[in-house]
């Protein structure tokens, strides 16, 4: 068995079903980083993320032969991962999250911006600054409730299409779009405040 052949989803699954140890290894190499990263972004706790990652691999082993291949392998695995994480959150006391409403744009009665909107988009053109802001955004997203955070991570960070995110989360595409939009509005406002304060400080 050539290792490259295992990069093909169907062959990998077929080999897993046969119980090939090379397939187990290939599965681990390909997915453990994403699974852990995704679990961390939902659970925000290292040991919870580690246990969730274990659950994900067990579920994949157990369900490999019932997976029908009507979605891509990675989106099936992401779905298992999101499920495993949300199961862990269930019943647990949720950590304090910010109220997203406080960060939504404010309008006058006739639908105009209530106060003038500043433009910081040109100031942050430089790539290095982008990277720094990436770290800042990550911190802000950790304050979001998981309802928004999961959609945001799958769509805007991982770059999945709205359709894929919807399929993974069992949501409709309009629901994904709406959550994503609100998460972006929240982040835009957080960044505005961050950059404004940074300037005066």
């Amino acid at each position, binding site marked *: 068995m050539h290792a490259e052949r295992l990069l093909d989803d169907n062959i990998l699954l077929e080999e897993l*079903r*046969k*119980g090939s*140890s090379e397939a*187990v*290894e290939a*599965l*681990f190499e390909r997915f*453990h*980083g994403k699974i*852990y*990263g995704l679990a*961390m972004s939902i659970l925000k706790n*290292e040991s919870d*993320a*580690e246990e969730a*990652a*274990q659950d994900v*691999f*067990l579920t994949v*082993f*157990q*369900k490999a*032969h*019932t997976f029908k291949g009507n979605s891509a392998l990675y989106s099936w695995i992401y779905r298992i991962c999101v*499920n495993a994480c949300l*199961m862990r*959150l269930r019943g647990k006391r949720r950590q304090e999250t910010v109220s997203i409403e406080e960060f939504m*744009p404010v*309008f006058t009665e006739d*639908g*105009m*911006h209530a106060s*003038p*909107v*500043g*433009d910081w*988009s*040109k100031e*942050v053109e430089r790539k290095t600054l*982008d*990277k720094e*802001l*990436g*770290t800042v*955004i*990550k911190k802000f997203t950790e304050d979001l409730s*998981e309802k928004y955070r999961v959609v945001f*991570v799958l769509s*805007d*960070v991982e*770059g999945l299409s709205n359709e894929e995110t919807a399929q993974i*989360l069992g949501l409709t595409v309009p629901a994904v779009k709406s959550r*994503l*939009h609100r998460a*972006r*509005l929240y*982040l*835009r406002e957080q*960044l505005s405040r961050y950059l404004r304060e940074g300037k005066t400080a």
Partner: protein
Amino acid sequence: MNCKELVYLLGDYLDGSMEEHLRAELDTHIEMCESCIHFRNTYDKTRIICRQVQLNEIPEEFRERLRSFVTAKGGEYSREIEKYRRMAAEDRRKQVESLLRAFREQRLSPSLTLLFDTHRDRCEKCGAFIRTLNGGEEAKHVPLEIEEHLAEFLDALPPGEEPFRA
């Protein structure tokens, strides 16, 4: 078109999925409104910066521990592949059984009730079977085909929500 409507539609506007005539209306508003130009620019920039967000990397120690776990369980899996298969089949049977029991005892959550009723009305096979349960009798033997179908239905539910009360 006012600022509030523009902000509401910004996602579709920027990802190009918006109809031409609506886009033209938004363009007309944006040309006249400095705040909206700024809002669009900063919203778009936010989207772009998001691609710089890095997911947490797995610490080396965790990686190796996870690797041992996966290798061990993977080996166990290959030795006991038949056992796992039976376990998965058993799990599926139990899941479908508790779904049907919860349905008979009217313990489905409101959203699941809606989804389940829709499925029953649309799906010929499951529909006929489920209607035989309406009298509240104990579940009959669930035909494999229907069990598979209902298991798929359960798999497609939104994760993280309790589908029925215990």
